[in-house]
């Protein structure tokens, strides 16, 4: 698809023919609580070689990363259809159920796979809250897949494979996005698409294009030069969109595999590519000025140098968080002057953070299956009473983490910044009493450090001692 784009080998939107369903899959009620979304397709008439198999596997892994949030949100399984017998079942299974996973020769229980198989160890954290695991079986109880961990060895795709069954499972409707991209790329290699009936009603894939409306003035304004409606349509067709004039509007049909097109500006960028960046005449700006680093950037650079020198890795968490993470999980009282989000799209992002440390503990929580020690920091923005401030937060987790270590880090940071400070007894409930201290600069409380309270460690699902500090910059 990429090559036909922009080179104009083929133009206009590709219409995908989808044959009616022959194969059915049913969903168990219990799976709704674990991994509820499912989209499937059949592709027939493929001719694979080692290169195209490698390309398919690479596409799958890239989608796991980019769309699937490292398999947590979406995971894809591709199976040799000749080795299995429909109808299929998507169920929640006992952890002691055995099958032979991909790349292994002996059957293992699903729990053993999570403990011993390289893929199981890597992704076990996705299923840690559940006492049953997702499983896809055929009519003869053969295992297709243990989503989102591993496929069964039985359905491995080889150069002899001609027909594929593709299943995409996940936590939200973006399973269809991933399925459409895989299906479209296989159709590009000559595969014939056939839909699958899910639970006797829904049929996937849905490859109808989305319709978006553009006006010439939007395109002209953003690209910076005049372009006719006909030229816009030609550029869009070159980029494999459908496009037609409807009054003053250009109606654009966006292919089902273009999940990256969210806004008219995304279309206009593609019009620019279709037109040819090399054909756009460059112009010098009418004014010329000399730039310099913003004082906050200089401050952050200096902090970055100090903290990395102390063996800490920089992280960049979201500035939006929730009261639950910011206060409840930290055992802290809710503050006055919090900035609330008017229409939050998720219960995880309802306020702007007032401190950084809770975000760092969340990151440690996400990485708890990684080896210790872990030492992370962020110098970033916090908002309180509608004022944006700069904070430095750092946290370290390992079995020997203690007050002395974090005191040495705080001392090193402030010494390097040539800031005189004192410490005073703290009453911050996020830290252990007697192993916590406030940082006092010019007579005012500027920060806090110490050993994180076991209740907080437990609230974030962690098990080892954690130390941390947060300092207003």
């Amino acid at each position, binding site marked *: 698809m990429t*090559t036909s784009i922009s*080179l104009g*080998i083929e133009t206009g939107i590709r219409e995908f023919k989808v044959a009616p369903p022959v194969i059915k899959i049913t969903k168990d009620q219990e799976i709704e609580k674990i991994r509820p979304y499912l989209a499937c397709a059949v592709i027939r008439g493929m001719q694979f070689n080692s*290169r*195209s198999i490698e390309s398919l596997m690479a596409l799958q*892994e*890239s989608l796991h990363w980019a769309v699937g949030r490292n398999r947590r949100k979406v995971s894809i399984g591709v199976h040799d259809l000749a080795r299995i017998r429909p109808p299929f079942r998507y169920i929640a299974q006992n952890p002691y159920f055995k099958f032979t996973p991909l790349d292994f020769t002996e059957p293992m229980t699903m729990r053993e796979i999570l403990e011993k198989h390289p893929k199981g160890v890597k992704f076990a954290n996705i299923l840690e809250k559940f006492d049953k695991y997702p499983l896809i079986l055929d009519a003869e109880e053969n295992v297709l897949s243990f989503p989102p961990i591993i496929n069964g060895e039985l359905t491995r795709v080889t150069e002899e494979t001609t027909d594929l069954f593709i299943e995409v499972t996940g936590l939200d409707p973006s399973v269809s996005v991933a399925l459409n991209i895989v299906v479209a790329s296989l159709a590009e290699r000559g595969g014939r698409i056939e839909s699958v009936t899910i639970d006797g009603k829904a049929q996937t894939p849905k490859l109808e294009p989305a319709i978006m409306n553009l006006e010439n003035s939007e395109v002209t304004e953003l690209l910076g030069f005049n372009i006719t409606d006909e030229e816009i349509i030609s550029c869009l067709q070159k980029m494999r969109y459908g496009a037609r004039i409807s009054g003053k509007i250009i109606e654009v049909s966006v292919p089902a595999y273009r999940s990256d097109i969210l806004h008219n500006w995304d279309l206009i960028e593609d019009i620019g*590519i279709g037109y040819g*960046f*090399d054909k756009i005449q460059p112009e010098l700006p009418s004014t010329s000025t000399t730039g310099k680093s913003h004082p906050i950037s200089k401050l952050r650079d200096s902090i970055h140098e100090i903290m990395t020198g102390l063996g800490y890795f920089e992280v960049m968490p979201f500035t939006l968080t929730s009261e639950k993470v910011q206060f409840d999980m930290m055992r802290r009282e809710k503050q006055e002057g919090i900035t609330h989000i008017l229409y939050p799209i998720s219960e995880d992002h309802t306020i702007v953070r007032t401190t950084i440390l809770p975000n760092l503990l969340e990151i440690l929580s996400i990485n708890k299956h990684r080896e210790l020690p872990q030492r992370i920091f962020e110098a970033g923005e916090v908002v309180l009473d509608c004022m944006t401030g700069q904070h430095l937060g750092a946290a370290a987790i390992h079995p020997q983490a203690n007050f002395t270590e974090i005191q040495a880090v705080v001392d090193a940071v402030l010494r390097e910044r040539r800031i005189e400070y004192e410490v005073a007894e703290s009453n911050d409930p996020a830290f252990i009493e007697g192993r916590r201290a406030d940082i006092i600069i010019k007579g005012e409380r500027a920060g806090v450090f110490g050993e994180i309270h076991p209740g907080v460690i437990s609230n974030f699902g962690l098990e080892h001692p954690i130390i941390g500090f947060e300092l207003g910059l």
Partner: protein
Amino acid sequence: MPVITIYYDDLEELSGIDKETVIRRIPMMGCDIERIGDDHIDIPWH
């Protein structure tokens, strides 16, 4: 960011275009080139 490895023989067979033309056009598609190998090209996926 995922990096897509495209083998020249696969690319030329799928597109019918020689690899030099495609490599020349990649920056004009708004893509970066991470590595040009003997038998493949690596492109970061934005």
